[in-house]
């Protein structure tokens, strides 16, 4: 087990290295000069040469990279060109909101997807199964920004009700604070839930055909015991591995949801920064999000190895 953990940890390092490389290259592949573009678009840099020196753009590329990585490891992600505050500070300020949204979305996704997936597998090819599969496919096909727009427009058109426009901080109104997350989290969780439901169903179908389940049936155990205690526990294992991937998708979806529902989280911050060509923020948010997702994938892999002994000895 220890060998597996060490090997897995070592594999993370080249991935993190490539992540820094990708983020670095992302902001250097601008056609033309970034300073020129900033000046033209936003009027940031009156003195182009001084701005270049400030951003360190007059040094050779690998020197820039090493300096940037050194800064990042020391906790300095640069300064936002728009708000003039350190990027890390801005991100940390907005991180809790995105975290709440993402967490709530995953809670919705799992609590909807697992029961429906199990039911769908146990009652295969019945009406319930087809309904469940249709919902899953709908969740995968329907764009979440459309659903969010409809969810805002239709109640407004027919009932005159809109979700709160202003963000409600926790201190002002705890219940209102939680309520305003519910709708965006639900919509965000639909797509992730659809994938989880399909995988749960597929895995349950496979497991229910196994011999040990047949033994459980023949022992005369109740359906609930066989399905939940014997079959589901084994079927869930691969589902855990895709949770990391789903979280990445949810993180991406927060950009849209926060923009539509006006929640000042990291996603909206990134979107505003993209509109304003605030590149230090773009770099910082990308780097942090990617690193978090790599770490979450690492944790799910290790959990997977913990639960399923067959993995450790590969």
């Amino acid at each position: 087990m220890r060998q597996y953990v060490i090997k897995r940890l070592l594999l993370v390092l080249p991935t993190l290295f490539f992540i820094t490389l990708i983020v670095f290259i992302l902001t250097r592949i601008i056609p033309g000069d970034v300073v020129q573009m900033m000046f033209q678009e936003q009027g940031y840099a009156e003195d182009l040469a001084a701005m270049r020196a400030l951003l360190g753009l007059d040094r050779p590329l690998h020197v820039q990279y090493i300096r940037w990585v050194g800064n990042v490891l020391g906790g300095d992600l640069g300064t936002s060109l728009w708000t003039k505050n350190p990027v890390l500070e801005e991100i940390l300020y907005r991180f809790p909101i995105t975290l709440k949204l993402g967490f709530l979305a995953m809670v919705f996704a799992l609590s909807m997807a697992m029961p429906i997936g199990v039911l769908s597998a146990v009652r295969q090819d019945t009406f319930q199964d087809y309904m469940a599969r249709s919902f899953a496919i709908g969740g995968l096909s329907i764009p979440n920004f459309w659903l969010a727009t409809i969810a805002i427009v239709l109640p407004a058109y027919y009932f005159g009700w809109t979700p709160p426009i202003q963000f409600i901080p926790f201190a002002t109104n705890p219940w209102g604070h939680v309520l305003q997350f519910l709708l965006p989290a639900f919509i965000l969780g639909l797509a992730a839930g659809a994938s989880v439901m399909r995988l749960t169903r597929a895995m349950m179908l496979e497991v229910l055909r196994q011999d040990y389940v047949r033994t459980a049936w023949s022992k005369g155990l109740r359906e609930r015991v066989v399905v939940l205690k014997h079959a589901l526990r084994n079927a869930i294992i691969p589902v855990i591995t895709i949770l990391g991937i789903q979280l990445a998708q949810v993180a991406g979806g927060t950009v849209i949801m926060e923009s539509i529902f006006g929640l000042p989280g990291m996603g909206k911050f990134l979107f505003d920064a993209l509109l304003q060509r605030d590149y230090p923020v773009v770099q910082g948010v990308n780097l942090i999000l990617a690193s978090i997702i790599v770490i979450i994938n690492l944790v799910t892999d290790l959990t997977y190895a913990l639960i399923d002994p067959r993995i450790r000895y590969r």
Partner: protein
Amino acid sequence: MVQRVEPISRPAPAVLSSVPRSWLHCLFRLMRRKPLGAFGAVITLAMLLMAMFAEYIAPFHYNETHMRDRLKPSSLTYILGTDNLGRDIFSRIVYGARVSMIVSLSAVLLGTILATVVGTVSGYFGGALDILMQRAVDAWMAFPWLIVLLSLMSIVGPGIVNLTIALGVLVAASTSRVIRSATLSVKEHTYIEAARAVGATHARILLRYILPNVMAPIIITATITLGFIILAESALSFLGFGVPPPYPSWGLMLNGSGRVFMLRAPWMAMWAGVAVSLAVFGFNMLGDALRDVLDPRLRGS
């Protein structure tokens, strides 16, 4: 012990004729076995036809404004109503199908070619090259796709070509994993070993032996990815970083800037979303059915 042998002269039990009489018969059997897949294929075909024959299907040009008929609900002239500039929504959806199809098909084609190269080389040669390439792909996949696409599009600038390339790179990363695992399993077959023994070069083995055998997963993944890319392109266009304004795009039609008018004219918010959902649904169903038919081992992926 002597066994009694049953006489052979029993009449054969009545079964459905299992030999297809013609390709049409074959097609109907397939449709009956996989109704959802057939439905998906019909939708896909409809989308492709809309894209190819947009000029004949759409009553108006997509940019043709009728200033006196702005924000009208659906009527006989304007089947799905008009938007805030008086453009016919139905025509814009039909032309939008063309834009979506072109961008998505090109992106998937580009991405699949790239993924095939990366996946087969990585899987076939193995070793340090494989580990390095896989770490790079892992790093790329660690970024939420919307965020990295937005960042890329805001940096390289708007444009259909840029959009296609960005989407293609995204497709390449996720598809290369599937192709790599398919290559790994094909690599173990004995005929590959035999080919090496006879003296075939690596290039010949890759092109002549490995590639034809990984075609099935490639086609399946490409079809399913096509659905996802249509979704991705519409999300990007919705946020304003996708297809640039003169061209109609379904995502663009749902754009936030038009949201102000949506309270007065909710039909503006409806039909483009229905179009996207249908298209993605169709391609997903087709891909699922293809996978069940061609390679059931991939089920659940």
